[in-house]
């Protein structure tokens, strides 16, 4: 394979293109000229070891961090994303690895944080927000019941549900999920996987950051591999094996370049 992986939906315009993105912290190139794209209804997995620059790359799209150079295109148009609000306005929602919840306030307040429902007197309409949250949770996690307590008293899975609810409630077109199943038990992980499949069906494009190679193969359409801030390559999931992807992650070698020796090394 010599060129970038071909996408089955070539006629469609990509939802997002990140072109030649560079981010440096001091002298360290956290992200060094990376180009990735995402189509509607597609899951693109971003994989790589710790410090590969996946999260930093994605933060340039979610508005948490500005890129030093490079271009971001949403729906074919070049956009500037200076802060999370800009990203939200473009339909980009993010579920952070840390979940980014305010522990001291309840689930509806977290779901609507920054985008509160207001009454006609411009006061907070907590009842309406609670109602909407209950509807939403009925869909995402029907066993979720704790709408009036601070989220600090919820379990890991419930907190994850709140973070997901916040991202999907506002009709996101592009969803970024940073390690969405890292803190979850098996049942909850399966729930998140179901949700990803469902959102995919609805035509939402998802960037999935994951360390779990099984998650990646189970859910994604394409896999972009990063190593030390650089993009090793993007491959179609259907055309590669797990070993080939592992070789990309660890050795930085694209499937054509991998030797049998490399594979043997992988397996120790």
């Amino acid at each position, binding site marked *: 394979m010599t060129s970038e992986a071909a996408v089955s939906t070539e006629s469609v315009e990509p939802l997002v293109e990140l072109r030649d993105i560079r981010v440096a912290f001091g002298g360290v190139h956290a992200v060094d000229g990376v180009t990735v794209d995402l189509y509607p209804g597609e899951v693109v997995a971003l994989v790589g070891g710790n410090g590969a620059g996946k999260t930093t790359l994605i933060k340039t799209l*979610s*508005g*948490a961090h500005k890129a030093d150079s490079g271009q971001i295109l949403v729906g074919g148009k070049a956009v500037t994303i200076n*802060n*999370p*609000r800009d990203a*939200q306005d473009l339909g980009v929602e*993010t579920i*952070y690895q*840390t*979940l*980014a*919840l*305010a*522990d*001291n*306030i309840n689930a509806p*307040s977290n779901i609507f*944080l*920054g*985008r*509160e429902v*207001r009454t006609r007197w*411009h*006061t*907070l309409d907590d*009842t*309406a927000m*609670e*109602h909407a949250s*209950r*509807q939403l*949770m*009925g*869909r995402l996690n*029907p066993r979720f*019941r704790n*709408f*009036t307590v601070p989220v600090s*008293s919820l379990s890991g899975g419930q907190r994850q549900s709140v973070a997901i609810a916040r991202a999907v409630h506002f009709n996101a077109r592009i969803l970024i999920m940073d390690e969405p199943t890292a803190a979850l038990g098996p049942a909850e992980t399966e729930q998140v996987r179901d949700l990803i499949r469902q959102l995919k069906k609805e035509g939402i494009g998802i960037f999935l950051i994951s360390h779990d190679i099984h998650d990646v193969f189970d859910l994604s359409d394409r896999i972009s591999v990063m190593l030390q801030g650089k993009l090793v390559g993007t491959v179609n999931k259907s055309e590669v094996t797990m070993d080939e992807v592992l070789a990309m992650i660890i050795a930085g070698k694209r499937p054509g370049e991998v030797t049998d020796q490399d594979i043997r090394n992988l397996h120790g």
Partner: protein
Amino acid sequence: MSDASATAERTDEGEGRQRKSPAGLLRSMELDPRLFGMLIALAVIWIVFQVWSDGTFLTPRNLWNLSVQTAVVGIMATGMVLVIVTRNIDLSVGSMLAVVGMFMGLLQAEWLPQWFGFDQPYTWLITLAAGIVLGAVIGAFQGSIIAYLGVPAFIVTLGGLLVWRGVAWWLASGRTIAPMDTNFQLLGGGSRGTIGGTWTWILAGAACVGIVALLINGRRRRRKFEFTLRPIWADVTIGVVGCTAVIVSAWVINSYPMPPGLARKYAEENGIVYPEGGLDIPLGLANPVLILIVVGLVMTFIATRVSFGRYIFAIGGNPEAAELSGIKTRWTIVRVFMLMGILVAIAAAVQTARLNAATSGLGQLAELYTIAAAVIGGTSLAGGIGTIPGAMLGALVAQSLQSGMVLIGVDAPVQDIVVGIVLVVAVALDSLYRRRLK
């Protein structure tokens, strides 16, 4: 799907709610157990002083005075809660009180009269407005350094504590400015600065109507969305207890009559013959207390009913999450300090009016009493947790202790020792309670 969520709405919250235990009862009424604990603490303090002082503590006269003495720190404590909730602190409020008080003193006693003469009807209003603007500007200035330059609030306001005290002295070279404008003086209470007995009753009636209206509106809103309603007995209990408390307070306040001299004057002005045994005309709620109540209501509204308040708590809970939610966290911090400055200005007006003088020594140690009130009232210095009513109650607890000790003749150093110990014990109890919760 809608079916599933509807059942969820009806069946939830039944779990984990035991109605039998006292804690369960409180939870059914959706009352904050810590606030309830503070009310009990306050009751204990009052009863102990009542016994110790041979029945002079719980008299209308003493309680009326207590309410006035609580006002200044109470007003500032409502703002300090929000400052602390955002994980900041404001050590400069005492000195700010001095500088704003001094400014308002000079404005009404020296600067404005040069142009308009003394005792103009609007002098007090111009003075108060200008003071509030000055307070907001100082608050915004300090808040900007904290939020945009990233200097810790402790350092910025510690600097402010020194700077503003110095500026207050320098404004009038250490002179005492007196007297204040006659209308302005009314802000400080005193025997003329009250709303009178009739208005006190009208206000109490309005408060009762307000409590009932809030309860009914709450039920109506929850019914609209088919949420589980709070049991009706809980709402009725809250309504009855709330209204009773309001009416008893009004009755106690109205049991404190005008001093004889003033009553005689009042009789003359109204063409009543002053009777032999004296006239029993109630003074009514003092203006500073009225101001405190209004400030408390407005601040509670800000803290719980508008986005700004929600953001303050979100920032305190997780600053990064707030930022990632698209909240302008820095601007929110600046606004919190501005609000603190405005409240300091209001407190300064009450204080100078009450003393009928402005000096550069005004508000010394007020920052510590204000922080103490907020903390006794359940505000967590780690940020994210605190309530306006709690802080006001905290101010009342601290003031009750001090007034009570003065009443029974405790020496000043011992007073400080007691207040200091109570502060630490209150916080220790609170962290024990919170640990048990987890």
